[in-house]
């Protein structure tokens, strides 16, 4: 029996001398009809390049296949070596026999064409359909990916659809011609967890319906447990381990696979929460940060004169307190108001109402202090590329009226050492550091002013999984050493589980559940929390069937003067409150 796809000893290089610059070295695997292979690795491991070599899209990115063979079994039973195929041959194969979906649905679609036109293109090219026939085929394609009201959605342009919907459209386009192989390159990474669960469920269903094979590329080994038959783990351009799903997950042989499975944060339903710093003993002390009835609204203007006709209730009556040495994680999906909460606490957005107080800790003589500091999500954007590290670390001190003297320099050196950066970093520029190192720099900068509270807004989300684990460790160490309180904003349950003492789940601008991390994660009470936790991929959930749920987040736009009713809370256990659902 000839496999559908057989890749042997594949090497791919880039640049003028591809042989000397190989990013994929000697990768081999086979894929039978109807099988799913997951390629798992971190950024730079060569997983995407391997996949892009199969449909030879890698050529357009400047890559060159330097060795090996990619044999595809054609529909007529013949075998074609794709490394030697001509461009016209490849054009016929792409889309018709090998479909592909990409990471960013927002940028993979042309913003000025309707989605109908873009789906029809595939039918026109490969099946020769035109006019009404093509439109009918496009509608069927949208029906197939469970987009409600497909006929009307065909006339939408991409900006009118959510990320999850767009990814469905991408899948519909890729599957338009019933390819026998679908390559999915991190198709859910840019999406929220609940949407990710829906897309994964959809892919699993479609695979069952059509019997196609799939290559699924991801950095999250937990995600593939639900869908893959085989796994290949890649590191530095080489396939370090491959085998059946259960064999890889249960008896990993290669140290890197073991590292991915053990050291990297995986969601464990509350079993991996922190055991230090329990709340009960500290209830009588002054909280490091207390937020009372925080409300942030943005006016919605419409009409010719731009009168305010309503308001976006981004944050609607949020209260919490944060003790010294404690981490409160605020979790929620995009648009839930978690980042706005953080920004309002720091004064980066003006709050409409509400109060917050933070305790200023005593600074050492001659040193200035600010009670709250922040670490941002994107370590590449939060450091000015034109300043040296010394100027970057000096800025908070200058801003608070301090002078850059010997004491400040000593503090810089100590902090740099503490966050694990080399001592000669001071005269270097941000671009000379990796993403993880830059995030350490941001942490050092936040600590320059002896804050009592550090707001971490998705602070590890942009980092590779194993770097994530190390930065989390650093954060926990620093918290113990300096007695810091963290307000940890995140969408990633696995990360939250490792660092949070308490968790607040935020939905549509309101906290719906707050309490002890273990209690919230292991026994969620609110319907939304349950849905959120059920959607988190874990390696324990192999081949579990997800419900396809297409409900959308409700609109946050309210008429002028609208006030939500008072919140009613139900208490579960010592430290676990849930908002009563209306």
């Amino acid at each position, binding site marked *: 029996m000839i496999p559908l796809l057989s890749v042997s000893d594949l090497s791919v290089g880039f640049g003028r001398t591809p042989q000397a610059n190989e990013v994929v070295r000697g990768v081999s695997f086979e894929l039978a009809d109807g099988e799913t292979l997951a390629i798992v690795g971190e950024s730079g491991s060569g997983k995407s390049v391997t996949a892009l070599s199969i449909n030879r899209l890698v050529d357009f990115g400047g890559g060159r296949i330097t060795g090996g063979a990619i044999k595809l079994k054609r529909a007529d039973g013949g075998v074609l070596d794709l490394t030697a195929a001509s461009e016209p041959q490849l054009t016929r194969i792409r889309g018709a026999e090998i479909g592909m979906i990409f990471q960013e649905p927002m940028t993979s679609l042309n913003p000025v064409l309707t989605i109908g036109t873009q789906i029809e293109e595939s039918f026109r090219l490969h099946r020769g359909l035109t006019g009404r026939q093509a439109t009918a085929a496009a509608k069927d394609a949208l029906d197939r990916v469970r987009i409600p009201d497909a006929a009307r959605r065909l006339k939408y342009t991409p900006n009118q659809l959510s990320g999850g919907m767009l990814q469905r459209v991408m899948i519909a386009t890729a599957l338009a011609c019933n390819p026998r192989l679908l390559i999915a390159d991190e198709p859910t990474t840019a999406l929220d967890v609940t949407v990710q669960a829906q897309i994964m469920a959809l892919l699993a269903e479609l695979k069952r319906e059509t019997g196609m094979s799939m290559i699924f590329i991801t950095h999250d080994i937990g995600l593939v447990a639900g869908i893959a038959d085989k796994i290949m783990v890649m590191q530095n351009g080489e396939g370090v381990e491959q085998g059946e799903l259960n064999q890889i997950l249960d008896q990993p042989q290669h140290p890197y696979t073991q590292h991915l499975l053990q050291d990297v944060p995986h969601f464990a339903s509350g079993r991996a929460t922190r055991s230090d710093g329990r709340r009960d003993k500290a209830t009588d002390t002054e909280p490091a940060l207390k937020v009372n009835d925080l409300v942030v609204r943005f006016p919605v203007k419409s009409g010719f004169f731009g009168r305010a006709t309503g308001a976006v209730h981004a944050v609607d009556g949020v209260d919490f307190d944060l003790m010294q040495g404690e981490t409160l994680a605020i979790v929620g999906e995009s648009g839930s108001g978690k980042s706005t909460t953080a920004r309002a606490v720091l004064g980066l957005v003006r709050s409409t109402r509400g109060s917050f107080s933070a305790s200023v800790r005593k600074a050492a003589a001659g040193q200035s202090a*600010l009670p709250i500091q922040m670490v941002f999500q994107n370590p590449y954007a939060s450091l000015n590329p*034109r300043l040296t590290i010394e100027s970057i670390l000096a*800025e*908070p001190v200058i801003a608070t009226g301090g002078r850059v003297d010997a004491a400040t320099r000593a503090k810089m050196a100590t902090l740099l050492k503490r966050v694990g950066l080399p001592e000669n970093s001071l005269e270097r520029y941000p671009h000379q550091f990796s993403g993880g190192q830059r995030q350490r720099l941001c942490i050092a900068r936040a600590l320059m002013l002896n804050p009592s509270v550090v707001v971490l807004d998705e602070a590890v989300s942009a980092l590779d999984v194993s770097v994530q684990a190390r930065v989390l460790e650093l954060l926990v160490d620093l918290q113990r050493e300096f007695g810091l309180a963290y307000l940890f904003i995140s969408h990633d349950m696995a990360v939250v589980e490792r660092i949070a003492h308490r968790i607040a789940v935020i939905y549509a601008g309101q906290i719906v559940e707050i309490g002890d991390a273990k209690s919230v994660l292991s026994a969620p009470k609110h319907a939304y929390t349950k849905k959120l936790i059920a959607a988190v991929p874990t390696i324990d959930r192999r081949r579990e069937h997800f419900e396809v749920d297409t409900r959308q987040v409700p609109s946050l736009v309210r008429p002028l003067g609208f006030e939500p009713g008072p919140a009613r809370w139900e208490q579960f256990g010592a430290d676990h409150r849930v908002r009563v659902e209306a």
Partner: protein
Amino acid sequence: MRMLRAVFAHPSGRIGGVIVALYLLLAVLGLLGLTPHNPLMQYRIDRLHAPDSTYWMGTDLFGRDVASRLMMGIGQSFTVAFFSVAFAALAGTVLGLAAAWFGRRWDGVLMRLMDVLLAFPAILLALLIVAVAGPGTRTSIVAIAIVYTPIFTRVVRGPALSLKAREFVDAARTFGSSSSYILTRHLLLNLVAPLTVQITLALAWALLTEAGLSFLGLGTQPPAASLGLMLSDSRNLMETAPWLMIFPGVAIMISILGFNLLGDALRDIFDPRMRRAIA
């Protein structure tokens, strides 16, 4: 130093750099009066003398040495171009930063004003200003500066708006940095690259505008020389003394070529996507 090496590693940067350096040298010599002859001296016997070993580029209707006048003219044209571009860049940067920083009404009013200025062709607007203020070197500097200010305002405002929304600016706000610190260290420092490119290209346009104004008799006033003025004087003698037209004409052409090549090279060098291709 590193910048200079990068310019010379770039093919068009090399040519442009050499041309611009040569012109700068000629301009300085011309301004210092270190010319082969006195550019104002009228050698009456040698009127309309063809180029030879004494008069490298011939003489004009009054018997003045064209080569010396060309050097003086380059000095004059470059002075006008440099001062006007300097003022335009300064004003444009301040206005662009103000528009981006204060936003809302400021942004609207300032940018609409710039749109009005941009709606006129450059030379026409300069003519209008000079016509109102009277001809002369100073007024042409002011006129050209006003004409090119909107371009700098736009070049600064766009990137400044995007920089303002970057996380490092948010970070600066969280530790309470002053507006002036954010504007200079975080915005202006990151605008150096686009500004440098724009200044180089604007110099070429300013040279051309100055030549145009002088040609029409509204820029540099005789007996001083400028490239445009020399070209204008040569109009009626095109057939009897073609050198009077050829040398200043070619001088203008090559200088603009030089600045454009240099500007292109700088744009490539500052563009990180191109950096790898050159290195």
